[in-house]
């Protein structure tokens, strides 16, 4: 591809990215990583496709309702790009599975919808010294940041206590918008280009048409990372 050059495209081809969740964020994230040519995508979800998902979970169609998301996601991503390897895993991400699911990954995309499981991903990223590309959405609002273990605050430094579970529906465009920021971050990281959202939390308010960013700092008392990890290379 002209944009990245042969060498850049090979970097993408050699990479393995783990996408945690095949829902609102996981759909656009996985589809764009697939067409970007990231060589191996591992995507995990333990749910079935429901009609209420279809406003935002663009991996799925009406005829997929009732099917396992992992199975459908695997088929669809492989259709989008037959030249990549897709490992779609029908699994719950928890204390028992997080380590094996992330073992081969060069980076983790957070496409989850709860913070306790996000904290598991955060710990896995810290342990393995690989980046975590965080996104969170609600309604027409979203946030994103890139966590580089040892270099930036970790997710728990930034958001030490879980916000309440979302009770408001997510607009499809919000998943698309924040998901595209996450994919852009993955792309820049793998190509070693540009400035990552490292140490910066991006906030998007779609209703106001505003994007803000706030600098975030490492918490010396952080439960997850305080003094435990060395910088990634």
């Amino acid at each position, binding site marked *: 591809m002209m944009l990245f050059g042969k060498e850049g495209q090979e970097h993408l081809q050699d990479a393995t990215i783990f996408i945690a*969740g095949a*829902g*609102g*964020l*996981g759909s656009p994230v996985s589809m764009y990583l697939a067409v970007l040519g990231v060589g191996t995508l591992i995507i995990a979800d333990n749910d079935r496709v429901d009609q209420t998902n279809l406003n935002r979970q663009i991996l799925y169609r009406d005829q997929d309702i009732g099917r396992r998301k992992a199975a459908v996601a695997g088929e669809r991503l492989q259709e989008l790009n037959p030249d990549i390897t897709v490992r779609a895993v029908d699994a719950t991400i928890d204390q028992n599975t997080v380590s094996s699911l992330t073992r081969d990954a060069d980076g983790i995309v*957070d*496409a*989850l*919808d*709860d*913070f306790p499981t996000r904290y598991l991903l955060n710990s896995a990223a810290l342990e393995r010294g690989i980046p975590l590309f965080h*996104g*969170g*959405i*609600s*309604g027409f*609002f*979203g*946030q994103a940041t890139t966590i580089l273990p040892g270099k930036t605050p970790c997710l728990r430094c930034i*958001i*030490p*206590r*879980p*916000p*309440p*579970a*979302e009770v*408001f529906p*997510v607009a499809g465009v919000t*998943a698309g918008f924040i998901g595209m920021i996450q994919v852009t971050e993955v792309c820049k990281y793998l190509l070693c280009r540009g400035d990552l959202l490292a140490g910066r939390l991006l*906030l998007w*308010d779609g*209703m*106001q048409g505003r994007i*803000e960013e*706030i*600098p*975030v*700092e490492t918490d010396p008392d952080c439960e997850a990372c305080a003094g435990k990890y060395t910088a990634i290379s």
Partner: protein
Amino acid sequence: MKITVRFFARFGELLGNTREIEAREGISVIDLVKEAASGNKAGFDTIFDEEGAFRDFVIVMRNKKRIRTQDAGSIPVGEGDEIAVFPPVAGG
């Protein structure tokens, strides 16, 4: 003195996105935000717990720099300051 308080996301929907508050000299960050949120009980209760402390997930910034919510009672607000209050969102 006039202080701007900005509420993001759900907080903004309940309380308005930007509030200009005519505040007394020496008011603390937490008291200022309480004043700004006082007009809407649902909004107030989303930000503050039963003891009147910031809920533990709330992020507060003063002039685009984050402050620890535990310290918000002892940090005074000055003329021209901007306070922003923001809830991280959990959906995906």
